């Protein structure tokens, strides 16, 4: 699936939630089930510091596609990371660098990407795209 198709799929899934509780329970579940990042990448180099929560991000290239793993100390942040990885993981560097991430707004989680929230997510998306740009330039 393309980045756009995955985003649309997530938007459809979220349309079923009746209220914020169900939505957040789902995000919390996603956070709890996010595959763990390899411990060796939970270091200063992979740390994206937020004022409220911290994020660790690692990217690798695999057969021309970028593979992401990530973690956070806050579970809601982790749940949103899980969605971001579902959308951007396993795509080409070029696709990632040029992706328009409209789904966050559509599923009503925009507030988590506000810079005042300072949870590391805004910088994380920037970093994901930068990996895309960097790997793109290298190839």
């Amino acid at each position, binding site marked *: 699936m393309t980045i756009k198709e995955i985003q649309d799929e997530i938007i459809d899934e979220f349309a079923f939630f009746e209220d*914020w509780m169900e939505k957040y329970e789902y995000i919390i579940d996603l956070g709890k089930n996010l595959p763990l990042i390899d411990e060796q990448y939970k270091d200063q180099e992979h740390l994206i510091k937020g004022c409220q929560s911290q994020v660790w991000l690692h990217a690798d290239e695999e057969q021309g596609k970028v593979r992401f793993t990530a973690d956070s100390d806050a*579970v809601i942040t982790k749940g949103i990371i899980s969605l971001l990885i579902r959308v951007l993981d396993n795509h080409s560097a070029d696709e990632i660098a040029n992706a328009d991430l409209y789904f966050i707004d559509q599923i009503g989680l925009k507030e988590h990407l506000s810079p005042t929230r300072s949870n590391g997510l805004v910088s994380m998306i920037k970093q994901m795209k930068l990996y895309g740009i960097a790997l793109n330039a290298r190839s």
Partner: protein
Amino acid sequence: MANDTTVTATPFDVQSIRDQFPVLKEEMNGKPLIFLDSAASSQKPLSVINRMSEYYEKNHANVHRGVYQLSQKATDLFEEGREKVRSFINAASTQEVIFTRGTTESINLLANSFAKKYINKGDEVIISSMEHHSNIVPWQMVCEERGATLKIIPINEKGEIKMDEFEALITPQTKMIAVVHVSNALGTINPVKEIIDIAHNHNVPVMLDGAQATLHTPIDVQDLDVDFYVFSGHKVYGPTGIGILYGKKEYLDEMPPYHGGGEMIETVTFEKTTYNELPFKFEAGTPDIAGVVGLSKAIDFVQSIGYDVIHNHEQQLLEYAMNELSQIDGIQFIGTADQKASVISFNIEGAHPYDVGTILDKLGIAVRTGHHCTQPLMNLFGIPGTVRASFAIYNTKEDVDALVEGVRRAAKMLR
């Protein structure tokens, strides 16, 4: 204070207080707003809001030196505000009351100006482990600049200053002791009178960071015999952008100006400038006149209720909230000092404060989460941050119930 049983409750109607705070009728995320973040900034009563807009409608002109009536009236209002603050903290003279933008600017002014006069290579400044970044970084900066050392008073696991270790830190090189009056992250009310007495025995001046104190407790700088006292208007029902630096005249007279510009001068030539007298020497540029007018009204508001009533009400809420919250599984309180203001910092085992804060926000409950600008303190406790609920005069038992219910719900969702 928490043990002060001599205070008797004057019956007062919290609803009539709430009616004076229009923001409390607002909603957040479609729910009635439960505002429990007054330690970050208190809400403003209508008397403050209305007076400030009336000031702009009818009284505004730049202060000092205007020969016309409107400017003289504005100057009178501004200087009446200074007198109001003087009497609020019982300073000996209005010359000792300097208007700043807030506590942070007050400390920066003091640290920079005081250091130029009094702090040299090899000297020491003492602060405590529970300081806000605003009372760490300015001193760190001037210590670095002057080749001085910053020393830290340790605290115990309840979040209280270790008084026995405090005195041992003082040496003949100690030039300033700067300590928080009430901790923003823990709620601890420090034994400031004792700290000042010990410091003065060693001839060291003391600055108290009163940012959190003025909301809860009356300040008498002469009774405390404190050398410098700083606080912000916005944390005591006043507007943002106005703060106070109180200093004893004997120090302020000796200290050089901080900012240069208009208002603070006596005569200016390109060769040399002579400075205005106190307090104007430290007030360069057009001041926040509306802020002073608003702050005056905030002081009126506090005094019309009375600190005894405020204290009683807040301590009752604190006690009720601590009792109710402590029944939640896995709750851990950070800051359990014997003397505590109405500030509760806590964590839920297995849940990050950001997650708890996010769920509470969805329920319309405004709390603060994170390190509360006290990173070294959080490091001491080995936690990334806390959830902090703080109570002011307009909060109710129902607010506490909503908080407890919200925290229960968050704990259930997150674990």
